[in-house]
């Protein structure tokens, strides 16, 4: 499978990327690690006229501590997030989830920003961003916008990033020494989750579900219940509120909702260890 023809330009800085986006219009796509975009292009589900390669913008690859936040540059690769001592210490859920994406080859190329802007409800990292209460930093010609993770995911493969804008960083509030768990149900090691549950406990708890809606899904009722100190049974009773899971070869709607309850229960058991 070979992608359709496209023009290729390389951006050397964020300003350069924004200029190129303005120049090439909405027929252009940004290319980072390429592990979501290139497969879609090979299937010709996506046929951008121009690819703006941002792979080599070094200023967007970093992990740093900023007060109560850990800030991760959008082009930081999954492998670097997974292995970062800073992330492991303050955001162990995010480090673990980064290590659950695809397989080692995918994690060597894929970037955290690329995964988030792809907005796939079956992907791992959007759930981690939702559960930990992350904020996305998006830059365009009109300057910078900050968007809470729960407002970032709009619909299937659609986020709040507008044409002409680029996600530059993700700000995660620290969750140091708090319980956490990621339960991912798969048939084969490197598959997308049939259902996944990302659970963050502590002072700012959150629980997010993978592949349970048309977009990455924050389980709001369940998150609020956890914040109020509700019993696990009460959290499980509302975990499927507002979910809209897909039905496919792997699972029916009912089976996915059953899995969401079982995996949430397991997540609590793991998180409290």
């Amino acid at each position, binding site marked *: *499978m*070979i*992608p*359709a*023809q*496209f*023009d*290729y330009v390389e951006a050397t800085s964020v300003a350069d990327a924004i200029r190129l986006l303005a120049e090439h219009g909405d027929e252009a796509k940004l*290319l980072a690690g*390429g*592990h979501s975009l*290139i*497969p879609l*292009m*090979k299937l010709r589900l996506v046929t951008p006229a121009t*690819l703006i*390669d941002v*792979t080599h913008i070094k200023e967007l690859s970093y992990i740093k501590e900023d007060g109560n936040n850990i800030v991760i540059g959008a082009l930081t690769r999954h*492998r670097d997030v997974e292995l970062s001592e800073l992330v492991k210490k303050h955001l162990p859920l995010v480090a673990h989830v980064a290590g659950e994406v*695809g*397989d*080692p*080859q*995918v994690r*060597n*190329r894929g970037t955290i920003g690329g995964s988030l802007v792809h907005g796939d409800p079956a992907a791992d990292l959007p759930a981690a961003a939702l559960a930990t209460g992350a904020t996305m930093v998006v830059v365009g010609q009109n300057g910078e916008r900050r968007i809470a993770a729960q407002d970032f995911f709009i619909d299937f493969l659609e986020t709040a990033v507008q044409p002409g804008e680029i996600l530059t960083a993700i700000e995660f509030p620290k969750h140091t020494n708090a319980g956490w768990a990621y339960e991912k149900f798969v048939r084969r*090691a*490197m598959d997308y989750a049939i259902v996944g549950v990302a659970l963050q406990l502590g002072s700012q708890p959150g629980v997010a579900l993978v592949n349970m809606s048309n977009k990455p899904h924050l389980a709001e009722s369940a998150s609020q219940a956890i914040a109020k100190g509700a019993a696990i049974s009460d959290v499980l009773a509302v975990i499927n509120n507002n979910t809209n899971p897909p039905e496919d070869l792997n699972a029916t709607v009912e089976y996915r909702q059953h899995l969401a309850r079982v995996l949430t229960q397991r997540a609590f058991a793991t998180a409290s260890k």
Partner: protein
Amino acid sequence: MTIRTSITVNGKETSREVEARTLLVHYLREDLGLTGTHVGCDTSNCGACTVLLDGEAVKSCTVLAAQVHDCNITTIEGAAQADGSFSPMQEGFRQEHGLQCGYCTPGMIMASTALLAENPNPTEEEIRHALEGNLCRCTGYEMIVNAVRWAAEHPNFTSGGAK
């Protein structure tokens, strides 16, 4: 649109005028004639096309040649030692019969080579985890794990020249 790309492959500088949409695996196989890197699933699942990009394992069916301009690529053709001996990993696959049909083998060897570069003495579980992106339909993986263990136990293997 065509672009000029320069990539160092197995220590040799290569440069070609290619279409922008050329995937790295096609650059290697069709432009350079290095057909040791296989196309398996063509959907970044099976790992048969795994090569090393600046020392890290990547799936060359999901990387554009344009993206690795000025980078170092190592393919199975570059896996052997300077004197022509098999690398410890290649010899491990030979000693432990880590292959049957051989289709997945170049990818398995490159992914395993990347693992040992980072973790010279992996446990069975670490080996299986590191190879989760490489599918083999013949061996049941048991002999592949043994092959990687063999390589880990014989880091200084040399046959003293080409076979």
